[in-house]
Structures are given as C-alpha cells and as structure tokens.
C-alpha cells in the first residue's frame, strides 16, 4: 500500500451521491437546438469558422483556437448554423456572450473520422497537436486547455502523472459513474498521457467512498503500471493542490504550478476525451453530466451533447420547478447559480444541481463573526479566514496580501463551517477581484503617465527645436549684416532697398523708352 498523506483542514459534508448512482449513464439525445458559447474554457475565446446558414456535420470544427491558451470548438451534431450571437451562458454573472447556434437536423451525421493507428509511433508534439485540435479542456470544472497543461514547461521533466478521480464535491457522480462504466477507456487515455509525458509513476487518486469505481479501475489497471490509490473521503481532497499533497506529500509552491515540482494532474474525464481524440479521432463534443437534487424525479447521469440547453436535461430528469429556488451548475460547495434554465451545457458542466428549497435552504442572515476559528481549522490552504474577513471588510489590501488571500482556492469550507453564516467566500472573491482591478488600473495609469510624459518631452523638444531654428536664422541674418557692413560699410538691408529701387527705376526707364 502506498502511503497517503493528509492535508490541513477539510470538512465532511453530507455526500448525497447515491441518488444519482441508481441508474447507468443514459444518453440525453439530440435536442432541437444547440447553443455553443465560444468561451467554454480558461483563456482566449475561440474564433468562429462558419457562417450563418452554413450546414455543419457532427464533429466538424466550427471555431478555431483564439490563442495559445485556447481550444477549438466542434459541432456536436449535424445541422445548420442559425445564428452567431450573444446568448446567456452558464456563468455566475448571468451575462450573455457570443455563441454559435446550430439547428439540428436530427440525422446526427458524422464527418469522416481519422484515428491514430498506434499512438506509440507518434511524437508527443504530434499527439499534443491532436489533443489541441480535439478541443479538450479540463473536464474537472476549471476548463484549462488540456494540451497547454500537458505541454508543460520546456525542459521540465515530469516525475508523477496524477489522474484525478476524486470528485470530492457532494452530489456529483459524473466521474464516479465514468470510472465504474468506462474504466478501460480511462486507462487507454492514461496510456496516451503517459506516452506524452513519460512520467516515472502514474497515480490514480480516488476517494474511498467510491468502492465500485475503485474495483473497476483496479481491474482495468492490472499490469498497466498505473497505481490506483484510495484515501479517506474529505472535502476538498479533489482540489488539485490538495490531491497532490495527499498522494505525494509535496505542496505546490504558492503562485506556481504543479509542473514546477514535476507533477501533472488530469481529470479522469479528460483522460477519456484524450483517448477518444487520439484513438478514434473524435473531438470533444459531449460529456457526462449529473442531474440531481430533490427537485428532479429521476436523478442520474446523462451523456449529453455540448450546447444542449439545461432545460432539455431537466425535462429528461423530471424537473419540478415549483420545488426549486436555485439551479446550480457544479456542486453545492463550489458550483454557481444559473440565471436561467435555458443556458447550455458546456465543457465544464459536470453537474446540474436542483435542490429543493428545504434541501439547501437559503442562506440565513449573517451574524457577527465571533472569531471562533472553525474556519481556520477547516481551511485546506492553512489560511486564517476570520482575519481575511476583517481585512476584506476594511479593504485593507496590504493585510489581505500579507495573509495570502491569493492562496485561497475558494473551496467554501470556511463558509460551510461558519456558525455565523457569513458568506466568507464571496468576501474573498470580491476582494481578489478588487485587488486585481486595482493592479490593472495601476498598470494602465502607469502607461498613461509614460505616454503623457513622452508627449510632454516631445512637445518641449519640438518647441526647443523651433526656438533653436528661429535663433539660428536670426543669428545668420545678423551675421550677414555684420559681414556686409564690414565689407562695404553699408547696411545690407539699405543696400537691398537701394538695389530694388534702382531696378524699379531702370525698369520704368525702359518702359518709357519703349513707349517713346
């Protein structure tokens, strides 16, 4: 048995996972319309490659990566592009963003797919290019482009590849059921990742509350060199930094990345997507989403096409809108509320939670912080949330940074334990955003100052140049006058006037003679 480590803090919220595990993964089918936001991942938005009215096939690339940290987007089903416009997207702001809208024709017609015959013959860079072209962004929740993460740092050697099957958030079972039903595919994906990264060891971390998944994975991993490691259930052990500490005892340096300590972390869903992309040539066009909560009649896991409206999933699961006050994308700890059930499923939608009003009651009014310290005991980053709370309220930026606000992973453990029901995470999010905004403003002010000063120097320089020219001209004129005076004892201006007069007189004389 491998030694597993513990991380500081953590909590044990009610798991509520059994509800959605009763039935196997079922397909959500093809909805009438798919809405595909151009930004479903971290990084630059994708750039559309199709026109309104164009017919697209399932799996066809409809938008290309908008930068290095970006991914392309593919049509999840065949149909016609009916609009490229702003639509509400799943985002805590409830705002709209550019989306490609496809009216499905129901034929679900694939483009020609071309898988790699044997990935072991391919160069890692080739495989990375394929992963990138397949539009794979981290399936765990953050949505970081997988190819960028796998490319890592030039020159850095990877010691450990960690596959994250932890799924520590209550309610969510998308990874759990994937591990139970598709362990083979996960292992295929891992084999490709191993070929790319060449790590010394591969660890597949699963919490011990998923015995069926562990059994399936162990059976599939036998003889492959992939070690399935189970460890005690505790939220947030699925956080990348926490999982790394559990499995290796190492901590990712603050402000750094796992690759700095020779570790790369990928989600099990990402591993399956990588396998699909390399072996089958299939881009990322669907994912597994858990639909659960007391406000749906039949909770379960759906294999759903990206862009499917949440409403479609809710209908499949027998949603009772009257019982539900909030729709949450993600889990109850880190998920965010949706403004409307019409927003689409995106690459990071691991769960759609529809709690009944009594199940997750509305937050009661916040009471005063009594500094009980339960939050500090629960914080997986060993922060002092109660202190951060005071500083956030006082907008004490220096103190917030000194107390390492930016190491907060927003897991919500502090708010969960807070006996005074203070929305601590919201304070930290707002403070982080304010500080970042201030930094941006300051950068912009600095740039404006430089431009202003550059302009000032330019204006003074031009002024000086003009002044210098004028002075030079004046000096030259004076010099000439002096020269003339010295030569002929005559004022040159006077001389010029004389010459002009003489000329005029001479001219008048000639005209007169001509007339005569």
């Amino acid at each position, binding site marked *: 048995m491998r030694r597993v480590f513990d991380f500081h803090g953590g909590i044990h919220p009610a798991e509520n996972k059994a509800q959605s595990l009763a039935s196997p993964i079922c397909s959500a089918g093809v909805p009438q319309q798919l809405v595909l936001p151009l930004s479903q991942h971290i990084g630059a938005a994708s750039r559309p490659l199709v026109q309104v009215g164009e017919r697209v096939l399932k799996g066809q690339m409809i938008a290309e990566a908008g930068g290095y940290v970006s991914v392309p987007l593919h049509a999840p089903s065949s149909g016609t592009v009916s609009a490229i416009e702003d639509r509400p997207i799943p985002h805590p702001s409830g705002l709209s963003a550019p989306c490609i809208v496809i009216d499905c024709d129901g034929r679900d017609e694939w483009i020609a797919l071309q898988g790699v015959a044997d990935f072991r013959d391919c160069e890692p860079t080739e495989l990375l290019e394929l992963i990138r072209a397949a539009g794979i962004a981290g399936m765990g929740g953050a949505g970081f482009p997988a190819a960028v993460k796998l490319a890592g740092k030039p020159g850095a050697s990877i010691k450990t590849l960690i596959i994250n099957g932890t799924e520590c958030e209550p309610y969510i079972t998308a990874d759990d059921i994937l591990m139970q039903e598709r362990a083979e595919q996960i292992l295929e994906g891992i084999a490709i990742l191993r070929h790319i990264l060449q790590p010394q060891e591969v660890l597949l971390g699963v919490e011990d509350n998923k015995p069926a998944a562990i059994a399936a994975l162990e059976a599939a991993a036998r003889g492959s060199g992939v070690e399935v490691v189970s460890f005690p259930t505790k939220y947030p052990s699925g956080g990348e930094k926490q999982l790394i500490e559990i499995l290796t005892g190492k901590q990712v340096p603050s402000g750094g990345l796992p690759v700095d300590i020779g570790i790369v972390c990928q989600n099990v869903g990402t591993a399956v997507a990588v396998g699909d992309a390399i072996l089958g040539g299939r881009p990322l066009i669907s994912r597994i989403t858990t639909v659960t909560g007391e406000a749906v009649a039949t909770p379960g896991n759906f294999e759903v096409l990206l862009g499917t409206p949440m409403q479609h999933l809710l209908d499949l699961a027998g949603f009772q809108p009257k019982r539900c006050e909030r729709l949450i994308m993600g889990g109850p700890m880190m998920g965010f509320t949706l403004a409307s059930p019409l927003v689409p499923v995106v690459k990071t939608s691991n769960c759609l939670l529809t709690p009944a009003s009594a199940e997750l009651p509305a937050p009661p009014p916040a009471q005063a912080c009594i500094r009980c310290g339960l939050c500090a005991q629960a914080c997986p980053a060993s922060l002092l949330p109660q202190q951060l709370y005071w500083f956030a309220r006082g907008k004490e930026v220096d103190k917030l940074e000194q107390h390492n606000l*930016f190491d907060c992973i927003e897991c919500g453990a502090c708010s969960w334990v807070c006996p005074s029901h203070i929305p601590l995470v919201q304070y930290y999010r707002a403070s982080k955003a304010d500080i970042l905004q201030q930094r941006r403003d300051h950068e912009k002010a600095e740039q404006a100052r430089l431009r202003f000063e550059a302009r000032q120097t330019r204006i003074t320089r031009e002024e000086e140049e003009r002044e210098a020219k004028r002075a030079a001209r004046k000096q030259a004129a004076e010099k000439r006058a002096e020269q003339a005076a010295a030569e002929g004892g005559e004022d040159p201006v006077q001389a010029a006037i004389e010459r002009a007069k003489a000329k005029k007189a001479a001219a008048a004389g000639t005209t007169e003679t001509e007339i005569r």
Partner: protein
Amino acid sequence: MALMRVSSPHAHGSINTSTVMRQVLLATLPGIAVLTYFFGFGTLVNVLWACLVGVACETLALALRGYSPAFYLKDYSVLVTSVLLGIALPPYAPWWLIAIGVASAVLMAKHLYGGLGYNPFNPAMVGYVVLLISFPVQMTAWAPPRGLAEVPGLWQALQACFTPAGFDAVTMATPLDVLRQNDSLLLEDLWQETTQFGRWAGIGWEWANLAFLAGGIWLLYRRVFTWHAPVAMLAALALLAALFHDGGSSASGGSPLFHLLSGATMFGAFFIITDPVSSAVSVRGRLVFGALIGALVYLIRVWGNYPDAVAFAVLIANFAAPFIDHYTQPRTYGHQKTGGKS
C-alpha cells in the same frame, strides 16, 4: 421562475452561533451545581439576576443601535457573559453590585466596542475588574464553604441580594488569601492549622474546579473550542508552580495541584480564555496566549496584590492578542515560511 443568485457554497454545516453558546451555557451547569452545594444559593441568585440585567442591557443596546433585538438576542452571547460574570462574583453579593458589573460588561465592554465579535476584551472579565477595583470590600467577601459554617438557604440568599440590609454573612478568607498572607508556616503546617484547606486546594474549591474541568472537557469533546489555549494555560501555571514550590517552605507559592484546583483556575481555563473573540486566532497563537495567561495568573497570585488573578491575566493577554496574532500567522499552503509574503 425566479432563480436565486448567490455565491457558493450553497450547503452549510449544522453548527451555528447560538448552538455554540447554548453548549457553553450547559457546560457551566456542573460548576454552578457544585458552587451552590458548597456555598449555598448565592451563586445561583447571582447568575439568575445577572442574566436578567444582562438581557435588559442587551435589548436596550441593540434597540439603540438599530438592530433587531428579537433576532440578535437569539445568539445567546449575552447570557454567556452574564452567567460567567455571575459565577465569578462572590455569592451573596448585593443586587446593585451585580447590576453594575453586568452593565459594564454588556454596555461598555461589548456594545461600545461594536457589539458581539468586536470587543477586544473579555466582557465578563471587564465587568469583574471594574467591580474589583471599585468595590474591593464586597468583591473579596467569600462565604465559608459547607462543612465550615451553616450554608444559607434560598430565602436568605435572596434577602442577601435584594434587601438593603443585606445578608449578614459570615465571610472567610479563601485558601488563596490565606496562602498569600502566609509567611511563617510551612505549607504542611498551614494545611493542618487552617480549616479552609481541603484535600488538595480548599474545601469546595477543589470540587468546583473539577466540575468546571468536567464541563470544559465536554466542550472540548463537542469541539466548541480547541485544547490549545486551556492546556497551555494550565501547563504554564503548573510549571511555574512546580518551579517555585520551594519544597513547601513558608515562602512557597503553593504546589502545582493547589494552583490548578483553587480559585478560578479551571473556570478561567475553559470558560474565560476560550472566548474566541478576544483571544489569539491561530493554533500557535492560542498556545502562546494560554501560556501567557497561565504565567500571569501565577505571577499575580504569588507576588501580586490580588489573591486571584484570572481576570487581570486575561485582560492583559487580550491586549497582547493582536501582537501574538501578528507573529504566529500559520504557514499557508505552498509557502516556505510562516507569514511570509508571496
């Protein structure tokens, strides 16, 4: 369908402030029972009258400050302050003494600083110290314990509290008083000659301390607070007592066991210094905070002017709490050293 938009987390644990406070109140019961058994109904009357005054002051202050009293009274914090102060006061104290103490605690130490959570000093101890400095005679008059004198009944206790004549109580020096004034007898002889000393630390006192210890351990078990501050305080106190025990000579400060089980040691360790608002916040901070209080308690008891010292020690440590916090910031995940800048 109107959907709620709130920041995560959406789930919440079952603990809330009023449960915590209620548990603290429950945990004081064994101590109150033992005090009542040994010293009569004085403590009980103190506590009940203090609660009445406390709730009245709190309601007034909340209403004046524009808070909803009906909602904020439910946090039970004022009851905790009142009960703790009622326990700390000598039994059979006159009603006005208690009222002044509670009013100072609730109005001055708590609401003038901004209410629950904002007070830099422990309100109960502020109330206690205000009384101790203003009315030293009344505050040092402890009744003799059961076994040394007749223990008054409930009616007498009420009379003592509420009638102008008061209760013509027989008062007796506490063991800590006796020990402080002793400069000629060996401890062994002192124990023989003076009636107050029980088996370890004074009749009544030792059992009261054990009862508060039991309450404290229950609170630890319920995870209302962590062990760090109480254990650090008791360890520091016992260590100093052991160092200066002096083999029980006439100049001895008393044995570690004596200090652990006399006066307000256990009450202070588990009910006063664990007040989270005015103490240090981090684990290491609470260790330092507790040890500081333990050391101060011993210093003041043995070389100071007052027989017991928990109140002063706590207030002094409250002053030091922000300073302790500054130097005991825990090491954040991914950082090399503590409190370092990223």
